[in-house]
């Protein structure tokens, strides 16, 4: 059913009895054209497969509930302020898809282009951000380089007077912002379902059937399912699932934590990152400050972290915003990052025919959801990479054509 003010009024007056389920809960069929594993980017992928490529006989298999993965536990920042040519066109494509998403899906995902501000605190950092800002502009992406005063005008309550690392300016992308994470899940899920995609929750893939070098189906906790093509988008579980087809990936699984404070009246109207510590923050529409920082730093399949990072993040918060000292954290959680060896994602075929891989998103793949689905669908349907994602090849590590935005080298926890 279509959502609108009118549907709300009509239903409201009718005691809200008329609303229909957002999606079906189908039993998985025994065979599909495409089986997508993982209901994060997988949902967007399924939607675009059906919508853009006319592939309706598609299933999304999800081991938990829709949105139980990182798409449902991230800090919701969307931006396209990347540095390297391999990344910029892709994330800008994603930004453009966000900008039209709500009308596309008839679902309010609260795309809020309140601006993303990366602070810098030294001249070398300024130079690096200038380099990045210029790269963005050359790619037709909006970017502004602010000095201290420019930052002060935007966020007056920062510590400008007593900072250990003075704020010297920031790189601002006004089109960046936040998107309501759960709404993205539900919006894509609902829209894909409406196009006939089977969304199967509580269905864990436990094996991948490979016959003569070709993937032909998956074993699941709800029985075997055959498929012409199998697409993996399982984030922190990428290595485990790929191993079912005998693959080893340039990926480690790490946990990153996030925090939300008690709700307060409007306080911060921008997304902000600290340049001299690990802290970034925005305020959710519910009023909580949603913030986070660095990875815990060690391989982890536990969706939770430890205290050193909690302290590190809060120290960063206090260094930047001394007025949040008395605000309280109500909840703190973690998610499983698919940290790649160069910090950039992979959208590619694999050595196994019919098996496609979407992984390596690190802590930055929420913003990518639309473009990731768009390009992954393109790859699956046409068997050729989408131009915007052409650099995300699996063989770039062997060749050395890595996409290393931070210049940290082949150590995932440093990206």
């Amino acid at each position, binding site marked *: 059913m279509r*959502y609108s003010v009118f549907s709300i009024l009509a239903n409201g007056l009718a005691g809200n009895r008329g609303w229909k389920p*957002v999606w079906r809960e189908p039993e998985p069929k025994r065979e599909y054209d495409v089986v997508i594993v993982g209901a994060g980017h997988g949902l967007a992928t399924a939607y675009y497969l059906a919508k853009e490529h006319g592939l309706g006989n598609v299933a999304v298999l999800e081991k938990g509930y829709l949105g139980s993965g990182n798409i449902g536990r991230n800090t919701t920042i969307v931006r396209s302020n990347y540095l390297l040519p391999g990344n910029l066109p892709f994330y800008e494509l994603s930004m453009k898809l966000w900008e039209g998403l709500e009308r596309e899906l008839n679902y309010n995902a609260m795309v809020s282009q309140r601006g993303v501000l990366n602070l810098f605190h030294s001249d070398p950092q300024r130079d690096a951000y200038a380099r990045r800002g210029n790269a963005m502009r050359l790619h037709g992406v909006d970017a502004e380089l602010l000095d201290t005063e420019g930052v002060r005008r935007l966020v007056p309550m920062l510590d400008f007077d007593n900072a250990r690392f003075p704020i010297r300016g920031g790189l601002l992308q006004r089109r960046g912002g936040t998107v309501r994470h759960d709404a993205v899940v539900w919006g894509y899920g609902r829209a894909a379902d409406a196009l006939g995609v089977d969304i199967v929750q509580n269905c864990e893939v436990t094996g991948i059937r490979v016959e003569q070098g070709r993937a032909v189906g998956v074993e699941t906790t709800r029985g075997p399912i055959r498929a012409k093509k199998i697409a993996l988008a399982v984030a922190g579980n990428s290595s485990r699932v790929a191993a079912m087809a005998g693959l080893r990936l340039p990926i480690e699984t790490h946990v990153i934590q996030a925090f939300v404070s008690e709700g307060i009246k409007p306080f911060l109207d921008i997304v902000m990152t600290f340049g001299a510590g690990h802290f970034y923050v925005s305020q959710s529409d519910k009023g909580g400050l949603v913030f986070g920082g660095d990875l815990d730093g060690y391989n982890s399949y536990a969706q939770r972290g430890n205290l050193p990072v909690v302290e590190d993040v809060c120290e960063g918060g206090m260094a930047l915003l001394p007025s949040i000292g008395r605000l309280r954290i109500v909840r703190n959680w973690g998610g499983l990052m698919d940290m790649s060896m160069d910090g950039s994602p992979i959208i590619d075929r694999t050595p196994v025919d019919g098996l496609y891989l979407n992984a390596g998103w690190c802590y930055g793949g929420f913003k990518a959801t639309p473009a990731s689905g768009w390009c992954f669908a393109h790859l699956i349907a046409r068997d050729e990479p989408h131009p915007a994602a052409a650099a995300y090849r699996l063989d770039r590590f062997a060749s050395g054509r890595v996409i290393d935005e931070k210049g940290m080298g082949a150590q995932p926890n440093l990206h």
Partner: protein
Amino acid sequence: MSAATDFARRDAQPFRLAAGGLIDRSRTLRFGFDDLELTGFPGDTLASALIANGVRLVGRSFKYHRPRGIFCAGSEEPNALVELRTGARREPNTKATTVELYDGLVADSQNRWPTLRHDLLAVNQLAAPFLGAGFYYKTFMWPASFWEKLYEPAIRRAAGLGRAAGMPDPDHYEKSHAFCDVLVIGGGPAGLSAALAAARAGARVILADEDARPGGRLLADRRLVGGRPGPEWVTAAEAELATMPEVRIMRRTTVFGVYDGGVHGALERVNDHVPAPPEHEPRQRYWKIVAKRAVLAAGSIERPIIFGGNDRPGVMLAGAVRAYVNRFAAVPGRRAVVCSNNDEGAATVADLAAAGIDVVAVVDTRHEVPAATRDAATKAGAILVPGGRIIEAKGGRSVRSALIRSGEGRDIHVGCDLIAVSGGWTPSIHLTTHLGGRPTWNEGMASLLPGTLPPGMSVAGAAAGHFGLASCLAEGARAGVEAAASLGFPRVTAETYRADEESVAFAPFWYVKDSIGKAFVDLQNDVTVSDVKLAAREGFRIAEHLKRYTTLGMATDQGKTGNAAGMAVLAEATERSIAEVGQTTFRPPFTPVAIGAFAGHHRGKDFRPTRLAPSHRWADERGAVFVETGNWLRAQWYPEPGETDWLQSVTREVQATRERVGVCDVSTLGKIDVQGPDAGLFLDRVYANTFSTLPVGKARYGLMLREDGFVLDDGTTARLAEDHYFMTTTTANAVKVMQHLEFCHQCIWPELDVQMVSVTEQWAQFAIAGPRARDVVTALLDPGQDVSNEAFPYLAAGPVSVCGGVGGRLYRLSFSGELAYELGVPARFGDALIRAIMEKGAPFGIVPYGTEALGVMRIEKGHPAGNEINGQTTAHDLGFGKLLSTKKDFIGRFMAGRAALTDASRPRLVGIRPVDRSVRIRAGAHLVPRDAPADAAHDEGYVTSVAFSPSLGHWIGLGLLSRGPERHGEVVRAADPVRGGDTPVEVCPPCFIDPEGERLRV
């Protein structure tokens, strides 16, 4: 009863009982709530004091701005949130039930406009039918631009209850560590008996309780332990624990989370019970308690029964009612209706009656009402309604009456100002799940009970589902004994406790289906029964979906009182058992923790430690401008009187150095002693070039790669003896390189006989550069030391005697390109040496120069530094290709050989000068062909570093340009859209000055 809501009345604490309670009536405390001036007693919480004063309306709800009162007596409170304190100390969303009253306390109600009593936004209630769960996902989509401009600001203004202070927090916070054998979490009967047992066995025990004093329910209920009133027993237990040296009782301390390795996070509210922390004392202390064993005795949280209007001020949990009456001698009303599904109803009725409150009706949801409850009802002269329920609590800003429906369906309408409700108890198992343990649903108790526990944790008392007082005491003692015994302490015999009779029987009853009006499941987030049903209808049937769609349990109380009922309603709506529906995940913190507490000491200037160079004090006296480089503070430049901007100073420093002589503190460079017979061999493997062949008394530039073939760091390393090298790293990478070397040694080549240690801090080291450098050095060295070009040529290195016999080291190195030396002395002489250098250098016109001038000179010389060695560049990119030895294996050698890393089309190091010499170029500008548009297709590289070259009189830069070295002489453009620049620049070799390097060899 009107008195209950009569704000005009001022006579002192009209709702305070004449006697009793654990309060100190000898002192009166004054406090303010909104425009009211009120009084209370030590021992009160803000909530109990408000109750004693007849204040029942304390806040407005999140979405509908409905009047709200006090619902609980502990940290599970969903309703009574206030802004505590004022100004920079304002704390929004503070639970009145956990605030200890102090003299002069000031609190304000939240989320109301203009006033609490007349809140205009209450009109939201009219729109309620359209503001159901998730309504916002279904609209506000058109037109897109309106979201940020119109809809979102409106939603955000409405959301969020309290207001942040908006000023820097004036108080300070501390971190601390504690270690123990047994950590007891919760100091109720179970916790106290556990602590006593473990302590008697000789274990180091920490007992933490979030309350101001231990005791738990024993402070709230009229119970007997061993014949003594509960509070007396508690006092005795405290007293015994206090005598034991290895026991620490931590009051006002909430254990908020369980972490790996027996680490428990706890927050001690050291000074929240006073107006402001005394000088030198923190407001709060964040503890990391490392415990070998933990006994969770966190008790249980009472459940409501959900009915229409259950959010009205005056509707209160029965256990809370008893707490206010018994512990605080404050009566929450004068005419009460008691509604429960369990045998504690009797105690509630009895306690109310004993306090002289009329109990008008006793509603028991069970048809079989136990004798105790019947008797209590009769004694109190209340009508008893077996198998009954409340279908609506009527009233405005406070309950005025209750509409009761009897088992037979008869409606009874009774006037009342208090409804004490109990739906039974939910064990506080939160902390058992923090490490991923899944609780298990117990049908009999209609509760989740602890499942898999964190290693070393056991659970006792109500938290484990033992609701009887006697069993709480017994189980606590047993848990204490076991915990100690498991650590090898003697197995003491658990004390046996006697408690008065009680029955804990109950029959689950979650919500009243035939309620009239809104029935709230989550009081703080305004989630109603119909919201839950709507969500179910829309397919949000999984517990986690329900939570996210309705926001059930996502408020500051995390659904401590509402979640269980929410799941029950969902189960019913989807025709499944509660077990099937499952539960949402508990996460830390158990109760909210202030961000400042986690930061502790590390804020403001103390955010990170500051490293000061040996010449810091001298430079400071001299008025140097400092810059943060990593944790170091370094002199950036030294302004002279009359100089107005940095460029003037820096230009002067460079000119003076190039024409005469300058000095710069380079002590911050990483310095590593690499020693042992295999030191040379080891360096050959970690450096791309060769060091085993370096003669003693010589230094050499070295380049280090990462194993993936990209450049890691560079520096010079001198050979001081056959088996002793002195390595320097960049300031930024000092720690990283040390770690890298130790990895290479310990994990890759442990067979090598080499030892390494950082000596960064041991040496104060100064670069003395410029044509007169030798004169200055000669003047500093003790006589008889020859530093002539012949005796001490370029790249020579060796020990020297400085200024009267101080043992130093001299290196003939040059970053500036001038004749230059680096002179090192033990750091304690650093301050004296810089002063001596300036003194001895004066005749030669010496100037100190800072990191800026250093940078200018290295750019003039084309030396790559941090902006070029950025982790993305290869040796080949930086023109160091020839350094890579082909005679040996070294870290990164194989991967550096890959085609992609040596591809000629990669951006490679070049020099840049503006075609129009008067133009300034900027680092970060991108390089595009002269006549091409500045776009992605034509992006050929970028400018890494720039400087105004005093020697050349114009701006110069270094850059990384595709095929750069083949393009010297070509003109390209430096496009800098973020700063509005776009200027033609000429590509040239990176070295602008003295390319043959003659000056540094003179």
